[in-house]
């Protein structure tokens, strides 16, 4: 080995403690980057083979009287259409134990020949024999069913009937059943008829020859087709080629990637500070090497190889960790998207990015101290004996501050490193808390235990009767309800609803204006008053309407009939689809449903979920006795679970990344304290000569570390506030179309402070030991 490389090898051995810190920091950061980037790559790849593999319809045209053979033939012959299928989706209910759960029954015309929104048989029959259904696998647990189980099913117009589960399917086009709290089933039109429902197929699903890339393009194609076909009641155009949860997942993965990238930047700063410390000790060696002929390029090459080799080892460590992490995170996310992962393999470019980022980024940062070290004049290098004095040091500064200011650059880097780590740590915790707080808002703004939707309006008098007769029911408040759309003059209604009927849906709710069952915060204008032809939009609906302002006319299409309402106000409604609130009295008269309502909101006397469930069962039985056709019964607890489950796991991933950042920050502090002690060995030896005890040395080291930490804490606090605000806004807009509440999390601040104090004391342990054990002779040599 050439002597210069022998020196590099020797330096690696002699500095192994600090180089190990460097290695751990870079490896952990790279593993985080590799995990997130790998997940991104795997999920993006598998979206193609899962969601897009189902050939999702680009538009669904709903015909009130059903899609006739003639319409289907014309649609298939239309030049703009590449594929067209008929289908029906029926919202029903399925009995699970003593309760009913929502059921979505998908009815393709023929299982064997369907070409759009396809699903894959996993087990059992295909197609399902008459009188049986197939279940989507993610709903098995929800339905408490297995193969060959009998399910008690109730469709809107039928009587409760029993069907057998004859098979399982995987439908990657739908969000998981457990997340949406809905059981998905698949049946033939014959089975639907046996269940007492009309087997008419109302939906014409199409893909266009142009394969539109944007929702506007798809909407234009769909509107034009609807005009050509005629008789279309409503258009459903979800965002094309996009899974209902895809945008949320991608954005949160991007957020995780930014955090992971920042951790690599912090690790690179740590590399630079550690290397600067090593170089500070080697200034005289550099001077000697220069004096015997070393050029700047040769010296820079030696230290670049030193850093590069550490980073190379970090890449080798991080690569398998990234593969494991990426597969683990992808599996969790894929479960949330109802995907199957096709392969564990990471694409080659992820590993390439890991190598390039893992070696180049730290080298870029390391270039700063390397350049400074190799350009020092020989004489200056040979004359260096320790830490110099800086002009900014003043005698009236406390001793710890004076010592820290002797290396202002290093102090700035250490404080910056710790402050950034702390800010990101506190931000992640605050965002997590804001997420929980937002879910609490769901509860705080809704003061009912149960929502019952009927297939046809139920008499309000029945509500009064059941409120008095069903034990445990405290209040039943009838509300108007209809699916709706923002009407476009002269055009067919378009909604963004996905085939699951939940994502992107829009409806009208008509509560009594004096209702106390909701208290949604007003964002603009005012709440409704009785007797006025006014509307209050929730923020989701308001964003869909885009250009409206309070006082404008809002054109609503309620069950296909256009009507105009004055916009009275806008409310924030976390965790809801688009809703237009109308006064119940005016709504009832406009719909000619006076004294009848399609929706009840119920308050029970139950003190916990168990008691409430008992009351709900009693109410269900009473409704069954009255032969009222119930569409859905949604306990409030289910709603909160459905909202909370959507990205909860990714919030936890953000917290895990925050821990990585905290670790990098603490490693940085450890390195800085260690360096400071080593550089001042001579001073410490001199102090000992003058009588300094171990306690004095310990105090000196600890006080300096604590001052650095305290400074970083203040900077971290200041940094974390705008960062928290920005991320909460981003996450909130993506998940709820409204910013998460700005939460100043005292817990996160306290936790970081406590962690910082403990870490600071921990970081000083080894350097103190070294300083205490240092003999005067060693220190002065």
């Amino acid at each position: 080995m050439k002597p210069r490389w022998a020196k590099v090898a020797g330096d690696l051995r002699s500095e192994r403690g600090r180089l190990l810190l460097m290695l751990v920091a870079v490896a952990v950061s790279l593993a985080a980057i590799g995990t997130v980037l790998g997940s991104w790559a795997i999920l993006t790849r598998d979206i193609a083979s899962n969601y897009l593999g189902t050939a999702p319809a680009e538009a669904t045209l709903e015909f009130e009287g059903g899609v006739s053979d003639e319409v289907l033939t014309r649609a298939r012959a239309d030049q703009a259409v590449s594929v067209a299928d008929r289908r029906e989706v029926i919202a029903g209910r399925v009995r699970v134990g003593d309760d009913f759960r929502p059921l979505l029954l998908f009815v393709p015309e023929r299982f064997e020949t369907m070409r759009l929104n396809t699903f894959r048989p996993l087990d059992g029959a295909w197609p399902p024999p008459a009188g049986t259904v197939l279940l989507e696998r993610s709903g098995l647990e929800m339905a408490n069913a297995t193969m060959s189980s009998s399910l008690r099913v109730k469709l809107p117009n039928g009587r409760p009937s029993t069907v057998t589960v004859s098979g399982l399917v995987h439908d990657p086009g739908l969000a998981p059943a457990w997340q949406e709290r809905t059981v998905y089933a698949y049946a033939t039109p014959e089975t639907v008829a046996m269940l007492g429902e009309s087997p008419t197929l109302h939906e014409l699903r199409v893909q266009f020859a142009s394969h539109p890339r944007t929702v506007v393009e798809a909407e234009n194609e769909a509107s034009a087709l609807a005009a050509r076909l005629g008789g279309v009641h409503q258009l459903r155009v979800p965002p094309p080629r996009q899974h209902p949860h895809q945008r949320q997942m991608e954005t949160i993965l991007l957020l995780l990637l930014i955090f992971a990238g920042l951790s690599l930047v912090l690790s690179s700063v740590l590399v630079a500070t550690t290397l600067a410390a090593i170089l500070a000790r080697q200034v005289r060696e550099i001077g000697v090497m220069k004096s015997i002929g070393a050029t700047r390029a040769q010296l820079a090459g030696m230290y670049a190889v030193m850093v590069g080799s550490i980073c190379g080892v970090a890449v080798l460590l991080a690569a398998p960790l990234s593969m494991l992490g990426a597969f683990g995170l992808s599996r969790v996310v894929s479960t949330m998207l109802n995907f199957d992962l096709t392969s564990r393999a990471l694409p080659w470019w992820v590993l390439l990015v890991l190598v390039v980022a893992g070696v180049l980024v730290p080298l870029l940062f390391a270039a700063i101290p390397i350049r400074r070290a190799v350009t020092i004049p020989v004489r200056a290098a040979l004359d260096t004996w320790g830490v110099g004095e800086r002009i900014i040091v003043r005698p009236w500064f406390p001793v710890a501050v004076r010592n820290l200011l002797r290396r202002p650059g290093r102090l700035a880097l250490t404080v910056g490193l710790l402050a950034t780590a702390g800010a990101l740590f506190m931000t992640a915790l605050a965002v997590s808390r804001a997420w929980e707080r937002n879910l609490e808002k769901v509860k705080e703004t809704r003061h009912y235990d149960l929502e019952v939707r009927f297939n046809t309006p139920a008499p309000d008098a029945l509500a009064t009767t059941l409120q008095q007769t069903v034990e445990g029911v405290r209040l039943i408040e009838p509300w108007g309800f209809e699916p709706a759309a923002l009407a476009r003059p002269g055009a067919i209604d378009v909604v963004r609803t996905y085939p699951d009927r939940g994502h992107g849906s829009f409806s009208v709710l008509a509560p009594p204006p004096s209702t106390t069952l909701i208290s949604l915060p007003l964002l603009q204008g005012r709440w409704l008053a009785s007797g006025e032809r006014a509307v209050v939009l929730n923020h989701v609906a308001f964003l869909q309407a885009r250009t409206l302002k309070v006082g404008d006319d809002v054109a609503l299409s309620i069950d296909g009939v256009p009507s105009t309402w004055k916009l009275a106000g806008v409310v924030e409604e976390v965790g809801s689809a688009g809703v237009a609130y109308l006064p119940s009295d005016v709504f009832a008269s406009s719909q000619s449903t006076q004294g009848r309502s399609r929706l009840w909101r119920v308050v029970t006397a139950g003190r916990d979920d168990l008691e409430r469930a008992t009351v709900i069962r009693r109410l269900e039985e009473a409704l069954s006795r009255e032969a009222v056709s119930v569409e859905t019964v949604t306990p409030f607890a289910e709603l909160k679970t459905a909202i909370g489950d959507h990205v909860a796991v990714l919030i936890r991933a953000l917290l895990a990344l925050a821990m990585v950042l905290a670790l990098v920050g603490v490693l940085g502090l450890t390195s800085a304290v260690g360096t400071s002690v080593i550089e001042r060995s001579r001073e410490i030896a001199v102090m000992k000569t003058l009588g300094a005890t171990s306690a004095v040395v310990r105090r000196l080291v600890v006080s300096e570390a604590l001052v650095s930490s305290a400074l970083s804490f203040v900077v971290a606090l200041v940094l974390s506030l705008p960062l928290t605000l920005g991320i909460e806004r981003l996450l909130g807009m993506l998940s709820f179309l409204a910013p998460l509440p700005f939460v100043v999390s005292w817990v996160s601040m306290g936790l970081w402070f406590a962690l910082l104090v403990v870490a600071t004391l921990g970081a000083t342990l080894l350097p103190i030991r070294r300083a205490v054990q240092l003999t005067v002779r060693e220190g002065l040599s």
Partner: protein
Amino acid sequence: MDNMSTNERQGQLIELRDVSRVFESPAGAVTAVDRVSLELPAGAFIGVVGRSGSGKSTLVNLIAGLDRCTRGSIRVGDVAVDQLDEDALARWRGRNVGVVFQFFQLLPTLTVAENVMLPMDLCGTARGAEARRRALELLDLVGIREQADKLPTALSGGQQQRAAIARALANDAPLLVADEPTGNLDQQTSTMVLDLLRSLAKQGRTVLMVTHEHDVERRVDQVIRLVDGRIGSPS
């Protein structure tokens, strides 16, 4: 950059014209070398003496290209040292100047042989087995061949200084600069080192030595005496 020719060694090797070196510090400017002009012959053993702070180390550093003058010009052989950029200076130094420090300055993580081989590696004058062979020859010359594969910390002060001299000879540099090479050694070892330097001068090298030794005149060919940065009374 090739080593200086034999002819150059036999003529004037070093020429300083009106050389000054001023250090700036918070306390004000300090003139370490003040308008020094001198010529030194090739193949001589020259002592630079003076009180502490008189500028002798600075003068030697300027000649060896370890420091840059604030004004004036320095020629060593055919080379205007003050005109070279940092890397050209490093390459020139590696091939033409051997430096011996008071505190030896061997690299602690390299063996003694590797320390000697390092200048050959940096200047590309010898590689692999050839470099090792030459390093052992030089260690043999200074009498510590058996210490070749030890780390510097395992050697006595005298042995380390001899290793440092071997390193200074690695690229067969015509000019050897030694800054108080005996300042950290006992009397007996000092004598041994001075004898070694003297023998190297006899072999044709120019040896420039900063020293505090009282009887330096007895040992060297020429003495430069510095007083407050200026040439005092040369002997």
